[in-house]
């Protein structure tokens, strides 16, 4: 995966500053992921080619970052055991454990019209 091509290096408005961010590692579903300290978790996962962050509970479709600004709740993942964290809003730090939501339809969804 050409991680370098999937990460912004500079931006006229946003403070990307990627050359000054310390490389760190986080763990996503047991996989070691290279990230840059302080970037958003969604950006770190994206840079590693991880676009599907969860499987939607209603339709089962793969979902990932959509609005990128904490508005749509599509990018929810579990971080260090806490569920429903919007990955576009949380910054990565060394050793962060991320669990991408599994499809878990449960009893209820059989009855959704």
């Amino acid at each position, binding site marked *: 995966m050409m991680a370098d091509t999937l990460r912004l290096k500079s931006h006229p408005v946003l403070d990307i500053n990627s050359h000054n961010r310390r490389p760190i590692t986080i763990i996503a579903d047991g996989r070691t992921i290279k990230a840059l300290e302080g970037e958003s978790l969604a950006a770190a996962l994206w840079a590693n080619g991880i676009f599907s962050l969860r499987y*939607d509970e*209603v*339709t089962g*479709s793969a*979902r990932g970052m*959509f*609005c990128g600004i904490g*508005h*749509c*709740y*599509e990018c*929810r993942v579990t971080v260090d055991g806490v569920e*429903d964290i919007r990955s576009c809003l949380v910054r990565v730090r060394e050793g962060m454990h991320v669990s991408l939501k599994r499809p878990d339809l449960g009893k209820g969804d059989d009855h959704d019209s």
Partner: protein
Amino acid sequence: MNEIRNSAQPDNDLVICRCEGVTLGQIRTCIHELGARSVNQVKKLTRAGMGPCQGRTCAGLVEMILAAESQTSVGIEPYKSRPPVRGMLIGVLAASADQFDEPAGPVSVAMLRPQASDYPNAPIMSEEIDERYQTK
């Protein structure tokens, strides 16, 4: 989003509410067959707007669809936002309970009382009572 208004054959499978998977077709059915005329009615009948984002993504779209499908752009009651602004963990809410003096407790109803033979006194009444509700 003029596409919705101008498109000759909009796709009924287009997902409008991402959280709840509600499609354009389902919303159209709601409008044309169930008589929905407000975003809230569409919400209650399809679940559009009931997911974690509480209508942030879809409410505006539903409003536009209502306008397009019912050929009107005025008088469409918008999505009713309700607190909390964002999801609040029950544990966090619970931890704040001691800050509140009122209410003292829930309305007293039979289900909460252990004794079936308890016959209730008047339940807790709401404070503001419109004049029309006073016995004449």
